[in-house]
């Protein structure tokens, strides 16, 4: 598997590269920032949550497991008690019979048959009943077989019954090939110092029924084995009765033991067992299905669904928050950059202004001399009528004088930009200033067939500014607007309140507009689109300087063939609170 690209992606996600320049790069950077933030926010919220969920999951699973073991142990104990009770009842009944009758009574075949009938009626599951003397000879017998006189002296069960007093045999197949077990009870004769044994054979069917009380699935098994591992009851999956079962090492003999084991194929299973009192039997349960943990499976599905929903919601929230956050950052960065650009522009214009002022000043003196010398030449020419080239000289001198006049206009305007205004600011109504300016231009607008529409906001706060300078700026802007239009154009003048501390005047024309390149240089000195003869390229440069000095702002928006809008923003006069 190629891990390299994945690792590179992870690196790009985890580490955030600091700022560089360029719009495309900025876009990439914001995307990178988003990825990084989403990644870390998700990791920081989801990882602890998953750790918590995993820990809880294992804890709950252990709890379920413990619970199911308890349940199994409970079932085994129940079955064990029932089996023990079953055996106990039979033993007690035999002991009762033995102690309630004498040897000679029980030797009577007919009486034994009657007792057997009553015994079978009351306790059931009894196959036969026999009396064995101390030599191991069956003296009397009642049951389906003919076993009277059978010698048991050499059989193991006889010896165990003799030594223990009570003996419960392992299962064996009788003559009818049905599984049975025998219970033998020894009865001592105190007077004669002798003994005899009463023996009953019990059908295993009842025990099988008792085993079925343990709640099991198809894959599970409950059965009884002997201590040597011989199956005492038939089993579902572990062989038939009397077959051998590979018993795990059974260490505890008291109570109920539950073991977690693995089969030959390595699959886990639960093995529970309990020793049955008075017998060599072991009640065993093999549980492979995990039925008892099925409830855990349902729970698990719900649990994982909840986790999935929570993780999804976290991711959703992370995406949303990061989106909002990065947009905030982007906006503030863009704003900052715009301010920086503006400051840079203003600084540039200011230094150009200072430079221009210095140059103008220096140029002005030679200009004055040229002016006087040329003027003198003109005067002389005017007086000397006999000069043959008079007209030619006059044209040249006039050319010089006109050029001086043009140069003077430029130097004056440049100085006007840089000069500190020693005018005291006055409080005025911007609408008044605009109305005056439109008044000045009335003839011009009529002549050019330009329609001027005034849309002046009512009750605007007054601004602290300078009437003359403001007039100059508005005249300049409106003149430019008219220059940009053919006859029949339209100029709209709108004043309103931008915010509570700023009054705004917008002058919108329907002229030819400007492209982005022109717009970029609009406030630069000597930048003109009107051609050298018509404009000096200083009007907007100076207007810019004036508005900045008045503490305001001048902005321009334009679209080619749609028109241009100049916006002049001026600070409102903050009236000093009067002392009551």
């Amino acid at each position, binding site marked *: 598997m190629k891990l390299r690209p994945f690792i590179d992606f992870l690196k790009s996600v985890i580490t955030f590269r600091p700022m560089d320049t360029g719009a495309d790069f900025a876009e990439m950077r914001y995307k990178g920032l988003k990825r990084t933030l989403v990644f870390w926010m998700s990791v920081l919220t989801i990882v602890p949550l998953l750790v918590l969920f995993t820990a809880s999951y294992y804890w709950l699973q252990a709890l379920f497991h413990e619970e199911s073991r308890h349940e199994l142990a409970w079932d085994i104990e129940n079955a064990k008690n029932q089996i023990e009770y079953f055996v106990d009842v039979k033993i007690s009944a035999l002991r009762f019979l033995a102690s309630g009758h004498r040897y000679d009574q029980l030797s009577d075949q007919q009486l034994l048959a009657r007792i057997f009938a009553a015994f079978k009626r009351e306790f059931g599951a009894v196959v036969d009943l026999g009396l064995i003397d101390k030599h191991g000879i069956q003296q009397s017998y009642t049951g389906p077989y003919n076993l009277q006189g059978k010698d048991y002296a050499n059989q193991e069960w006889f010896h165990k019954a003799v030594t223990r007093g009570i003996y419960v045999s392992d299962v064996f197949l009788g003559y009818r090939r049905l599984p049975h077990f025998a219970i033998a009870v020894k009865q001592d004769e105190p007077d004669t110092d002798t003994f005899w044994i009463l023996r009953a054979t019990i059908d295993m069917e009842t025990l099988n029924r008792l085993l079925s009380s343990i709640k099991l699935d198809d894959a599970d098994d409950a059965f009884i084995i002997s201590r040597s591992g011989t199956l005492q009851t038939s089993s579902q999956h572990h062989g038939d009765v009397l077959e051998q079962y590979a018993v795990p090492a059974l260490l505890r003999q008291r109570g109920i033991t539950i073991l977690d084991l693995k089969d030959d194929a390595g699959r886990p299973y639960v093995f529970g067992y309990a020793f049955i009192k008075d017998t060599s039997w072991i009640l065993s349960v093999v549980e492979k299905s995990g039925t008892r943990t099925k409830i855990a499976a349902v729970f698990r599905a719900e649990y994982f669904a909840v986790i999935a929903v929570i993780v999804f919601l976290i991711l959703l929230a992370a995406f949303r928050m990061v989106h909002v956050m990065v947009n905030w950052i982007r906006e503030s960065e863009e704003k900052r950059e715009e301010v920086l650009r503006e400051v840079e522009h203003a600084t540039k214009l200011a230094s150009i202004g200072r430079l221009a*002022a210095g140059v*103008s*000043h220096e140029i*002005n*003196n030679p*200009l*004055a*001399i*040229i*002016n*006087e*010398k040329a*003027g*003198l030449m003109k*005067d*002389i020419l005017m*007086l000397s009528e006999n000069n043959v080239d008079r007209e030619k000289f006059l044209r040249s001198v006039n050319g010089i004088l006109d050029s*001086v006049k043009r140069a*003077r206009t430029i*130097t*004056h305007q440049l*100085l006007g930009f*840089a*000069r500190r205004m*020693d005018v005291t600011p006055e409080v005025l109504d911007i609408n008044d200033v605009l109305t005056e300016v439109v008044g000045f231009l009335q003839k011009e607008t009529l002549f050019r067939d330009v329609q001027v529409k005034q849309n002046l906001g009512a009750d605007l706060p007054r601004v602290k500014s300078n009437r003359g300078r403001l007039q100059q700026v508005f005249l300049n802007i409106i003149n430019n607007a008219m220059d940009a239009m053919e006859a029949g154009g339209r100029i709209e003048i709108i004043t309103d309140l931008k915010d509570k501390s700023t009054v705004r005047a917008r002058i919108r024309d329907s002229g030819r507009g400007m492209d982005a390149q022109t717009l970029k240089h609009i406030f630069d000195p000597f930048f003109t689109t009107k051609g050298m003869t018509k404009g000096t390229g200083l009007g907007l440069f100076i207007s810019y300087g004036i508005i900045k000095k008045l503490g305001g702002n001048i902005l321009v928006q334009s679209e080619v063939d749609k028109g241009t809008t100049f916006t002049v923003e001026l600070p409102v006069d903050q009236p000093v609170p009067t002392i009551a």
Partner: protein
Amino acid sequence: MSATKVLLVDDEAEFASALAERLQMRGYDAKAVYSADEGFESISRDAPDVILMDLNMPGIKGIEALKTVKLVHPAIEVIILSGLGSEETATEGLRNGAFDYVVKPVEIEDLVIKIDQAKEKKDRK
């Protein structure tokens, strides 16, 4: 009526001499000097009707020269020849008794009008 006597005081000799000559052509009795000291000397010899004076000259401070002239010869009208960017000085000059100011380079026609007005004012006194 004799010609109006105009004294030009400007350290820029080329400018002052040419302007003086042009004024002479227009019938004024114009004379150019190139420093404040020369100016004072000329005034004491033959007091002019109107003085055209640059306030930004080396040596004696222009405004002081103006004050001195107005103090000694209050009748003489002074028109300030202002350099560009020194309108503040010109305004100060007006406060100190100057008749008016013109900004260089000057339009001869404007200047002539101002000289005539100054002369008129002087004659009214």
